[in-house]
């Protein structure tokens, strides 16, 4: 059993990083993830970790230095948010294309304009196609647990891909919650020694990394990345099983909450899931069969498993804390795709909520469930995509 402490989400991440003790961290401060690297810098300054901290001059350079360090042959971590991730965007693709198992915490925040420092998922969703494994976390405990597991997932021989752990900005990053930390030696044993693959610093066996690849070979390397992603689901489950042994906490590809006999379901990521679960309990008390699905692994997306879990549901409300202007929200598109894999044809509506840190309140969850219930009864949908919690 580890220690139980009341800490902020950022503190939990910094603590996980201290226990992981990566060889190199390169980072640039940005709200709301700044505290992660601030606390970590203090660990470096106090000699509590062996890490070389590279305090770069931008997030673009942060990810560039992370790639260089990872290529050199060691364990590498960083953290960022929003505009920082946007500035890294070019390098995110390069990290995955070069197969660098870098692990990053993304403290989710809205993208400008207008500039806004609060939590939504537009940053993480914008990085959807960058070839990174994405894990999402409801609270600080999950973020801490996910970060430790992400090391194992990213570095797994069958994967060798970068991974990002998402956690809601401010709502989680700056809120204090009571959570359990693993003992340092347990984390150390769980992640194990880093095993470099063809490191750049092996001067006896020089390699060329990052060459120009023309149409004759380019697709083969993309196919390799696809293959690596295909292995992720199994690795996530395998790592989760081992993690449960050391922590007692169980993780899957997603969390299904009161979904077994549900006729109505909400699909939602991260902190809003907690609010929804409370409201679902109230509706269940009134005999309404409603459940929730909270994806944990968003990239690769576990389509078949999600479809299976939602196969008995008649009406699904997918909540997106990110916009795809002119399209459905990104989570809606995934759920719609998932439902195509098993032929079940639920009615699906999409609600855009919580942008720029707008509060998601229990009454919002109740409004969605009421609407799902009405659709189930009438078979009629007023609007497939709508905003929730916005003033007219």
């Amino acid at each position: 059993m580890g220690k139980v402490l009341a800490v902020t989400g950022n503190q939990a991440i910094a603590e996980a990083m201290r226990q992981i003790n990566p060889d190199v961290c390169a980072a640039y401060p940005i709200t709301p993830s700044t505290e992660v690297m601030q606390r970590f810098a203090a660990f470096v300054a106090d000699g509590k970790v062996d890490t070389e901290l590279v305090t770069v001059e931008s997030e673009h350079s942060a990810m560039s230095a992370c790639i260089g360090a990872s290529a050199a042959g060691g364990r590498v971590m960083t953290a960022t948010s929003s505009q920082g991730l946007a500035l890294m965007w070019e390098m995110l693709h390069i990290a995955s294309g070069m197969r660098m198992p870098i692990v990053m915490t993304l403290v989710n925040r809205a993208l400008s304009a207008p500039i806004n420092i609060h939590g939504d998922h537009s940053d993480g969703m914008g990085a959807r196609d960058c070839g990174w494994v994405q894990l999402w976390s409801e609270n600080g405990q999950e973020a801490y647990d996910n970060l430790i597991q992400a090391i194992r997932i990213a570095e797994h021989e069958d994967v060798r891909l970068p991974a990002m752990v998402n956690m809601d900005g401010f709502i989680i990053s700056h809120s204090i919650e009571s959570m359990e930390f693993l003992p340092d030696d347990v984390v150390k044993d769980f992640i194990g020694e880093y095993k470099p693959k063809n490191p750049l610093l092996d001067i006896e066996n020089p390699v060329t990394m990052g060459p120009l690849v023309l149409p004759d070979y380019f697709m083969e390397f993309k196919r390799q990345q696809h293959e690596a992603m295909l292995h992720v689901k199994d690795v996530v489950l395998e790592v989760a099983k081992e993690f449960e042994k050391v922590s007692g906490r169980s993780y899957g590809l997603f969390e299904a909450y009161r979904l077994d006999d549900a006729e109505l379901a909400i699909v939602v990521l991260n902190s809003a899931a907690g609010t929804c679960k409370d409201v679902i309990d109230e509706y269940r008390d009134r005999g309404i069969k409603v459940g929730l699905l909270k994806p944990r692994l968003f990239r690769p997306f576990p389509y078949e498993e999600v479809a299976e879990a939602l196969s008995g549901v008649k009406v699904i409300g997918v909540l997106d804390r990110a916009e795809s202007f002119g399209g459905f929200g990104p989570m809606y598109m995934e759920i719609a795709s998932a439902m195509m894999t098993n032929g079940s044809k639920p009615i699906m509506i999409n609600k855009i909520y919580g942008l720029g840190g707008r509060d998601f309140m229990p009454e919002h969850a109740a409004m969605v469930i009421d609407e799902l219930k009405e659709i189930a009864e009438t078979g009629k949908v007023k609007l497939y995509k709508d905003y929730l919690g916005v003033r007219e």
Partner: protein
Amino acid sequence: MKGWKELEIGALTKAGSADEYNTGSWRAFRPVWIEENCIQCLFCWIYCPDSAITVKDGKRGEFDYMHCKGCGICAMECPGKKGKKAIVMEEEGK
């Protein structure tokens, strides 16, 4: 050509493998070494962009025509002996 299962992941490339690649076919003009005019200054060697001048024990040998692109820098920089160049450029195929 190799399929995706056989390729090293992430496009990792073998160091120095370009040595096997023929750029000699690019040449329009061919440098010709006239040994009797050569003072072994090795300017041709240090100024060659294509590592195409073979040197053994500090003395130059024949051109590496597999890599020489025929730019003519060696001939231009050759001081020669008594006003006679040790490298001259000749049109290929003549």
